[in-house]
């Protein structure tokens, strides 16, 4: 069933025959988790290299969101280890908070702080977690808001923005911490169709600039164009882990063929 990723070009081997040296940034080793009787993560082995963009796809309930949330321990795991930049993820407390600051996260439902303005949303953690002076943090926030095309919205409250705008603010907020990696948990699933592209544009640019990204998404176009690897999950297992062209043109497993036939038809 589980096809171990045979290290193709740019794959999860320690020394792939590429031009860029492969250094693992996120490593999951033998990760297991249950939700009650449901074995939602089964023996997950996943390595994400520095600068790599890994897209996680799969049918709903396959555990892909849980996998993404486990990386910064929003979901605690029962067995296995997760390493961020070689450091094991601590259980709770200050150590975990410190490591979380290095891994940005973008949520399906944006989760902007409803009682703060857009600018405050982006600056808050810079000031309180990174200890930056307010003026410096605000300046950085404005630069980032400009990068996502929202400089003019800085003083509005999240509820005054469209979904697409909120999600771009959320990306700016994550970037403001200068994270080593970004996790995207279905970042476009709650958006109206015409707003999906403005978010994907920002993500494509980040991928292009070399940001390490783990993206749970149903956007196959993004996976084809920007991903280094596609991880296909079903029933809590990683079924395939391959380059996007290989995966989309010739999926190895029955599950993946079935899944792709359902979503690529229309």
């Amino acid at each position, binding site marked *: 069933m589980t096809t171990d990723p045979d290290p193709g070009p740019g794959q999860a081997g320690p020394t792939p025959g590429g031009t860029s040296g492969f250094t693992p940034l996120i490593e999951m080793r033998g990760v297991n988790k249950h939700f009650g009787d449901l074995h939602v993560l089964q023996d997950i082995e996943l390595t994400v290299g520095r600068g790599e963009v890994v897209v996680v796809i799969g049918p709903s309930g396959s555990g892909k969101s849980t996998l993404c949330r486990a990386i*910064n321990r*929003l979901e605690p795991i029962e067995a296995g280890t997760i390493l961020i930049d070689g450091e094991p993820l601590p259980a*709770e*407390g*200050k150590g975990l*908070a*410190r*490591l*979380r*600051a*290095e*891994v*940005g*996260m973008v*949520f399906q*439902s*944006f*989760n*902007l*702080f*409803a*009682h703060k303005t857009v600018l405050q949303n982006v600056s*808050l*953690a810079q000031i*309180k*977690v990174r200890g930056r002076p307010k003026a410096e943090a605000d300046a950085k926030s404005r630069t980032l808001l400009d990068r996502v095309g929202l400089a003019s919205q800085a003083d509005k*409250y999240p*509820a005054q923005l469209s979904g697409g705008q909120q999600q771009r603010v*959320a990306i700016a*907020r*994550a970037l403001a*911490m200068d994270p080593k990696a970004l996790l995207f948990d279905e970042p476009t699933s709650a958006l109206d169709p015409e707003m999906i592209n403005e978010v994907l544009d920002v993500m494509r640019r980040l991928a292009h600039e070399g940001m390490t990204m783990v993206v749970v998404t149903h956007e196959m176009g993004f996976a084809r164009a920007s991903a280094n690897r596609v991880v296909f999950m079903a029933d809590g297992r990683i079924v395939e882990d391959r380059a996007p062209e290989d995966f989309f043109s010739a999926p190895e497993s029955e599950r993946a063929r079935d899944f792709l036939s359902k979503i690529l038809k229309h």
Partner: protein
Amino acid sequence: MKTLTDNWSTYWDGFLGTLLLFAVSAVMSLVLGVLIASFRVSPVKPLRVFGTAWVTLLRNTPLTLLFFIVVLGLPRFNITLPFYTFAVLALGCYTSAFVCEAMRSGVNTVPVGQGEAARSLGMTFGQTMGLVVLPQAYRSVVAPIGSVMIALAKNSAIAGSFSVTELLGTYRTINELGYSIIWTFVWIAVGYLIITLAISAVFNLLERRLAVSR
């Protein structure tokens, strides 16, 4: 009216006594209540257990009993404080249990995603609560906390039976002087109304203030 004018200074002392008792206990119960509410939603199990025990014990026993325990019990352990301090302790602790539960219900109205976003940015539990969750919870708890504060103002009358100068207790002095019992109580009731209606007004104002920035 004669009942009031003749005994103005007695009433006034009682009124101030109740006001002071209310103010100090209110501050204490609000601080304690928010703290215990944070305990009850914290990821640390011993804190959660402590918070739950605190609320269960204080919310489910009569306030008068608590007064007896504090006033008669604590001196047994060589803790002797002025009656006034005992009264504040009893009222503050008792009310904190109700403040805690109101706060907790407010915390539960804040979507979990807010806390998750804060934590994913590297905020500690304290920062997540203090900077993100509680400020949003306050909005939905203004009205229930207002009710708790009004109850506190009225509960402070019990302190009168424990040698603390407060409004209700003034009836004994005034009654001994032979004034009409009915009018004695009418003026006491007016005193309480002044305090409780003022509390209502403050909380109405707060509610409107906090609502606009949404």
